[in-house]
């Protein structure tokens, strides 16, 4: 059975060496003002390529508001 993670409450297959940048790419999250938490813990921008997602992780990619 594939291992899953959840990104903003939606399931996504887990893969080896899955980092934050890869998640943003898979979800096509191109907006820059993000707050990202993995299992409730904040991951800072300079860690997006170094932080590897564990299987079963609950990830929140909070898009802030801008424009208008």
């Amino acid at each position, binding site marked *: 059975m594939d291992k899953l993670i959840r990104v903003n409450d939606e399931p996504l297959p887990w893969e080896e060496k899955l980092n934050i940048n890869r998640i943003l790419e898979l979800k096509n999250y191109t907006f820059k003002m993000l707050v*990202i938490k993995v299992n409730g813990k904040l991951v800072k921008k300079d860690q997006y390529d170094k932080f590897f997602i564990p299987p079963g992780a609950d990830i929140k990619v909070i898009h*802030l508001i801008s424009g208008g």
Partner: protein
Amino acid sequence: MIDITIDNKKITVEEGTTILDAARKLNISIPTLCYRPTVEAYGACRLCVVDINDGKGTRMVTSCNYPIKSTLDINTKSTRVLKTRTMLLELMLSRWPNVNFIKRFAAQYGVTKPRFTHPRVDYSTNACILCGLCVSACSEIMWEDIIGFAGRGEDRRVVMPFEKHYDPCIGCSACANICPTGAIRLVDDPNHPADPQRIARYGTRVSNEVALLDHEQCRMREVGTAHLTEIMNDYDLLPTCNYKFGSHANAGQLASNVFYDNFFTKGVPDGCWLGCSMACAKAVENYQLKTGPYRGQKVLVDGPEYETVAGCGANIGIFNPEFVLECNFYCDTYGIDTISFGTATAFTMECYENGILNKNRTGGLELYFGNEQAAMELLHQMGSGKGFGVIVGQGIRRMKTYFAGTYDLNPEQIRFMQDIGMECKGLEYSEYVTKESLAMQGGYGLALKGAQHDEAWLIFMDMVNNQIPSFADKAEALHYFPMFRTWFGLVGLCKLPWNDIEPADNAETDEPAKVPKHVEGYVNYFSGMTGREIDKKELILMSERVYNFQRVFNFRLGFGTREHDRIPYRSAGPVTDEEYESRAERYDKQLLEKWHWDIKGKSTSQKREYLRKMREKDYQSLCDAVYKRRGWDENGVPTIAKIRELKIDFPDVVAILEKYYRKKPD
């Protein structure tokens, strides 16, 4: 990545990192006087000198502006370095003996009394030490060149042109705020704030954030809100062909880099609000018009910003940046709102493609999506009060009535017009696709002025983040954000510096979507200006009073009750089979998972109709929740208890509301 050593400590840094930044990462202190991260370092004071050895020999460089490009061995405390800094400080102290922080720095290097007296000694405690930060702030942060250096050597000094008062200076105070000695001070503030220092303190924070962070956040200084075009397209939110779709293969032709690379005037203040470092209102100079009464003339186009790109571009199926510029110019010249023009034209185009309009009815205009010539001719007709433009110029609400009353339309066509006419309370929708965000449908439908997003923009919170799943969550957002954003209108401040730039540590706050540190800033601007202490709760209360007054005005103008908060179905879901099928996987999944409705064997039309039933029901439930949260009754009327709580229960207000209560209030 490059390996270096600083004072025998090893560190790996990215190429281009300055020695000063690398040293700070190792907690190695290097003195600086003219360095600020918000402006470009230029090594004027030379206090930050260090010795570097690149394997070929040792030399002294200024660390603040030396980018690391190869392996280096750096010594920040060599005898030569310390001697150089000591001499520099002795020279400075000889010229400015009473400037506190020079005295302090000099004392750290054992200099308390210089051995000589400078011929131009200045005994002032607020002497200008020629660090140049003011000149850099004016030029780099404000994009002005009000002040600069004149003279050389001992005669070097900061001046305005010809050493006279220079009218373009509006006293933005960027120079005064960055000046380390107080040599520049704002002496005449016509607004007479109660506490100018308090306002400067919080205002400078935002200016610093813009200088340091904007390039990696929204790029407002480069492209303004036009950066949203590609973002909205990526998230399926860019209205395309009258909001049928949220993205288009050609959207890249309208992306912000197209305007930046080919059109925008760069590096000058925008004139929107002098002294605003965000400077997000963009302009295009020397644009040569192709049509209309000014054809052939070169003009300045004030924009475009995102709404204009989306409204006068994607939403009418046109992906030509020059068309958007032409529209932008003529809308401004004729006094026509670009959003209303775009949305109303998109409506007529869909009517044209569906047989509600034809060449006879439009006076020969072939208004299919993407027809640049017809759209531009329509704009000129609207501006000159001629032809079909006279009808379109009245807006979608009146067009619907006019078409239904004038042409031989069947009930299905009339219903179709109601579904695709993107207006609420008579105001055309601004440029966001709201089908997948119930909260944003409420953001438009429950906005008091009509379908505008400036009360609440909740699409990311709702649709992308899934942060506000319940009706109560959405209602809370549709209470807080409209109240907060109304406050900008009350005090006459721009909303953009609230959340189009964010503090570096905003992510670490409890409620990043509210940008708590900027809310704190607004509280302090208010108190600093008026001398009256408030807190963030009172800020919301101020708005809530006015917001409820505005609702009362809605009633006076005939728009207050529930039926006027209804939205066209295009705002809530797919009107046509074509739309449903374009996102069939999404809608099918929702029918199955959210509403547990068996889609097997069902036609697209059947699925679309069921989806509609569910989504329209959800919208009404949202209205119930929002009315309750706002203290309004089930018909959207502020209750007597609410207006009493807000202390706005004046007899004439009560008299208006009483006409609308279905049940007599207790």
